[in-house]
């Protein structure tokens, strides 16, 4: 059985039945952590020595695609933990940090989050202001983070903070913070347009002490560490866009075959059938860009351009396809109970999270030496 078939079977049996309730209650179904961990779906791309499940970025992309077909909100939760936060622990953690913090994340025993964004610094990572001031054998963290996915459910949070004055490129350090630590608290869950089953919070650091042994990687090298880990994050988000578009196509095709107008199924009307064919083509093109980015990264080649293109294109395709699918459904698509309304709402954030469309275009323009 191919890996994609295993992911598809897992999602159909274990995820899809939970979507309606999770969206309604705006809560991630916690039982999924261990189930995904047992199935080896939380440690893809990590070697077995650190508790990983083997595989590569392409397998992570395939999983992301299949999860996002069911629900973006459910998908993003484990994807952030294992494939956006955990890579920082793996790439830059010491062996003891990997044992204590990485291994339990890769098996679903613990949840991780990555906290970089602040109220006044998103794409501009170098502009963060949360400060880490040396204190005894460690640092005191002071400031806030915003829009942090898994903020309220994470056990382990990788936090970016300023550790020196001047240019942010050479003054950021990442730290490992544990939930429940003194001086660390989370705000109320933020209500969002989409991704309803994911947890998004403000994180508040009020003189939160972090020992020097919880510095992740090198002091003042955090900016570069964050930039390196962005590549994986972008492939995951792009793959989620492909999965979302695929789900919209499946739902729209089924609906168009069944729904009649002017005495025949609307799938026989040129306006609809051509739109569906367009959706299909766009989605396939996005999928190939995503797979290309993953394959290049897996081969150790420079994937910067491919990743930026995949993220930009797949996010835009997801939005276009979701919009077209609502149009296929007509009035029914405007109802929350339609299978496409959730995807329509979930699509929008894909053009923002993990580097906006504009950031991807800037990366591409720079690579063109403009």
């Amino acid at each position: 059985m191919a890996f994609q078939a295993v992911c598809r079977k897992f999602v159909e049996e274990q995820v899809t039945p939970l979507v309606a309730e999770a969206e309604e209650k705006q809560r991630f179904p916690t039982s999924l952590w261990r189930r995904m961990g047992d199935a080896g779906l939380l440690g893809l791309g990590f070697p077995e020595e650190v508790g990983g499940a083997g595989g590569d970025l392409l397998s992570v992309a395939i999983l992301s695609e299949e999860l996002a077909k069911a629900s973006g909100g459910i998908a993003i939760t484990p994807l952030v933990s294992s494939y956006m936060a955990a890579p920082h622990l793996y790439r830059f953690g010491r062996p003891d940090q990997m044992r204590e913090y990485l291994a339990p994340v890769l098996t679903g025993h613990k949840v991780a989050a990555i906290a970089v964004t602040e109220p006044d610094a998103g794409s501009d990572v170098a502009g963060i202001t949360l400060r880490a001031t040396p204190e005894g054998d460690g640092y005191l963290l002071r400031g806030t983070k915003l829009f942090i996915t898994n903020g309220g459910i994470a056990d382990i949070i990788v936090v970016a903070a300023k550790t020196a004055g001047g240019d942010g490129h050479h003054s950021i350090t990442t730290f490992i913070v544990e939930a429940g630590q003194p001086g660390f608290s989370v705000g109320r869950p933020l209500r969002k347009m989409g991704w309803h089953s994911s947890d998004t919070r403000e994180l508040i650091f009020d003189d939160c002490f972090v020992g020097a042994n919880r510095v992740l990687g090198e002091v003042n090298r955090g900016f570069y560490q964050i930039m390196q880990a962005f590549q994986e994050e972008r492939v995951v988000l792009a793959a989620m866009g492909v999965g979302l578009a695929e789900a919209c196509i499946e739902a729209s095709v089924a609906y168009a075959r069944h729904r009649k107008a002017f005495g025949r199924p609307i799938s026989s009307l040129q306006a609809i059938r051509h739109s569906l064919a367009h959706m299909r083509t766009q989605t396939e093109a996005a999928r190939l860009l995503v797979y290309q980015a993953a394959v290049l990264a897996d081969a150790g080649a420079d994937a910067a351009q491919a990743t930026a293109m995949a993220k930009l294109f797949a996010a835009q395709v997801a939005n276009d396809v979701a919009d077209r699918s609502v149009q296929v459904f007509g009035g029914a698509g405007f109802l929350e109970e339609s299978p496409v309304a959730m995807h329509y709402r979930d699509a929008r954030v894909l053009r923002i999270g993990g580097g906006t469309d504009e950031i991807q275009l800037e990366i591409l323009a720079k690579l063109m030496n403009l």
Partner: protein
Amino acid sequence: MDKVAVCVKHVPDGRMRIDPDSKRMDRSGPGELNAFDLNALEEALRIKDAAGATEVIAVSMGPPQADDSLRTALAMGADRAVLVSDPDAAGSDMLATSRVLAGVLDRERPQLTIFGQQASDGTGAVLWSAVAELLQLPVVSQVTELTVLEGALRVKRQTERGDDVIEMPLPAVVAVTDAINEPRYVSLRGQMAAKRKPLETLTLGELGIDPSSVGVTGSMTTVLNLATPPSRGSSIRIDDEGHAAEEILSFLAQRELL
């Protein structure tokens, strides 16, 4: 115990077709591991995980493409697989099949052999019984719970009146239902590992089985005829134009079914 064998079957995936000439199932299309056998494998793997066994072997008889299903068994965690594939075995009924499986099990001598209750294609649900008879081993079917004891097995058998709790000496044969466990998902690591695990393909000759005792000649059953089920007669289809409920109600009322 050192060895648990699981007998598995490669069954057609999705729609089944019967070849009208041979009156046999067309096994040329895509196939998959029989769903009940996933439960059997899971139970064997749990015994091994709990250090109750050192080796799990998947055993099957089928066409060459049945090795797909054996790879799935290996990916789930079985240590090795044995496939008996021989043109002379094609067309075997359950008695003939039981001779082949018993031949493999006689060679392997596992302490415990687990079957899924039935196959999704033939739904025979007697193969385990025939195999146990040929090997002269105790057999219990409809097993929903299994505990390994010292040289013995305690099982719960589901019946229409309640559960029987049975102790049986090892070696033994059991057939499990899908209520016994929830099969694990194949992990990517398992899939990679499966490629390196031994999958042995045997002919009847290599197993020392007389070809005339299996296949069509060795089978005691003959399919005389095949027919599609008779139609249900005239039916009425009601499309919902906003009055479907009333129409169904009046249909039932007219026939005094309400």
